């Protein structure tokens, strides 16, 4: 695996934003080394904890930034790491959003929690394609880390991202069936799927599943689809929600 150095991090109760720099930056095109929808597998150097998948929030000439939910042993470790510590990464893995979406059309993007990262990264790359963006958080502690213009906070408004999307769609005055790209928890994605059937929009969901290898070989992150069992890491993480068989 390749080395990256933690340059800077900000930590709140639930989330952290970490900036990494490549130990050996690419010669050129560093900024384009990963596409929106793809992810990197990160691990620390010593402990035998499987590498974990993370989307980038953005990239720059020397490295990348991530928005991470503190949820397990690795993210706990990362939240306590000091600047200058070396980590390991491999990838990018996964199918880019652009491979599954029709980019001749406008897209509504939805991010829930740390699912905001790939959505904001997608928005940055394809700003001309964005019809509307809703980024939802349970509470507003994230504001200590980052200012997201499109953010809504359930603790303040009492509304979920689905409520917000619903309001937008009811007032929407545009031709053509809405297309929604969403990234968030599997419960959010599943709720959105039900909502997409009620409100008649096309939904693509970028799924978050516990992964093993991250590259399709270990069969650790399955999703049941109409065309058989697929791997979230390799065949996804983005899927047309109509293809998914949610009950397994």
């Amino acid at each position, binding site marked *: 695996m390749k080395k990256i150095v933690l340059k800077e991090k900000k930590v709140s109760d639930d989330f952290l934003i970490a900036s990494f720099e490549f130990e050996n930056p690419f010669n050129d095109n560093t900024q384009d080394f990963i596409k929106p929808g793809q992810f990197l597998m990160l691990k620390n150097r010593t402990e035998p904890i499987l590498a974990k998948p993370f989307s980038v929030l953005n990239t720059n000439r020397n490295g990348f930034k991530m928005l991470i939910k503190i949820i397990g042993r690795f993210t706990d470790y990362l939240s306590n790491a000091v600047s200058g510590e070396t980590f390991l990464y491999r990838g990018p893995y996964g199918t880019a959003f652009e491979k599954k979406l029709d980019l001749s059309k406008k897209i509504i993007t939805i991010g829930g929690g740390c699912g905001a990262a790939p959505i904001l990264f997608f928005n940055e790359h394809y700003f001309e394609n964005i019809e509307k963006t809703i980024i939802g958080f349970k509470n507003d502690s994230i504001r200590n880390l980052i200012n997201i213009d499109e953010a809504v906070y359930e603790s303040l408004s009492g509304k979920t991202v689905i409520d917000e999307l619903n309001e937008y769609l009811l007032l929407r005055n545009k031709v053509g069936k809405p297309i929604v790209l969403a990234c968030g928890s599997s419960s959010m994605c599943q709720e959105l799927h039900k909502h997409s059937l009620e409100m008649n929009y096309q939904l693509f969901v970028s799924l978050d599943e516990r992964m093993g290898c991250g590259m399709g*070989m270990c069969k650790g992150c399955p999703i049941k689809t109409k065309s058989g069992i697929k791997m979230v890491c390799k065949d996804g993480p983005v899927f047309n929600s109509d293809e998914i068989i949610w009950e397994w």
Partner: protein
Amino acid sequence: MHLKNNILSVDYKGINIKNPIVIASGPAGNGEELSQTIDLSRIGMFTSKTVTMNRTDGNPPPRIVDVYGGIINSIGLQNPGFQSFMTETLPFLENLRIPVIVSLASNYAEELETMVKALDTRNIKFLEINFSCPNVDKGREPIGTDPNKIFHTVKKLKKLTKKNILIKFAPADAILELVQAAISAGAEGVVLSNCPKGMKIDINTMKPILKREFGGFAGPAIKPITLNQVYQVRKQFKDIMIIGTGGVINHEDALEYIMAGANLVGIGFGVMLDPFIPIQIIEQLEQWFKLRNLNYSSVFCKAQSL
């Protein structure tokens, strides 16, 4: 056993194995993805993902849970079935230019016989009969915990093939009895060990995290157990082929297995942890031997008081 070695190579009945590092069955799939990351022709041997007669969808997620010192996995032998394996996957494995082990599982002796027979003419060197997957429960009682069933099943399989047969067992107190049954029936060796069963409970929901309650415990935490299985079996069976596997993530782990009496060392969890690990171990082993002016055969079985 006739072993002829340079620093790392192992010669088994005329099969040249470049080094003792074997990709174990499971975590590396059938090598298609791994071959895009590392040069598989540098590995000693490659083991296919376990094949079943019919397509197996595997278990619902979550399939992998982190625990201290490793993971609990509950993949459930997901594979497209034997016919698909023969046409879609085996040609790729036959062209790897390293000896290949095809891993097979069934609780039905007849299915194993069909698969073993069909593989006899193909370019593979070993068959691994996986009698010990912790993550499937379809079919009859498992063959792999009953010495009598093991003996009769392996005896039938040996009549159907010229390939070397290795039996994969999970750690067991009665391992010597199980191995005895396999070897007396004609098996060339054993793979020790498959994952012992383990579980994890979510203290918030107060329920097991895995839908099947338990799964296979893999990773460095199990190495003392599996290493001891290798050691105890080697003590009793001087001439059989043993692939030692369980928690190998560096060359020191591999050396322990070789010193305990493993001819070859399998890597499973390690490939998931970091797909570059097999190559790193081969390079580290070579360096370790060179620095000490030793080679594979000068450490093999050295922990045994033979």
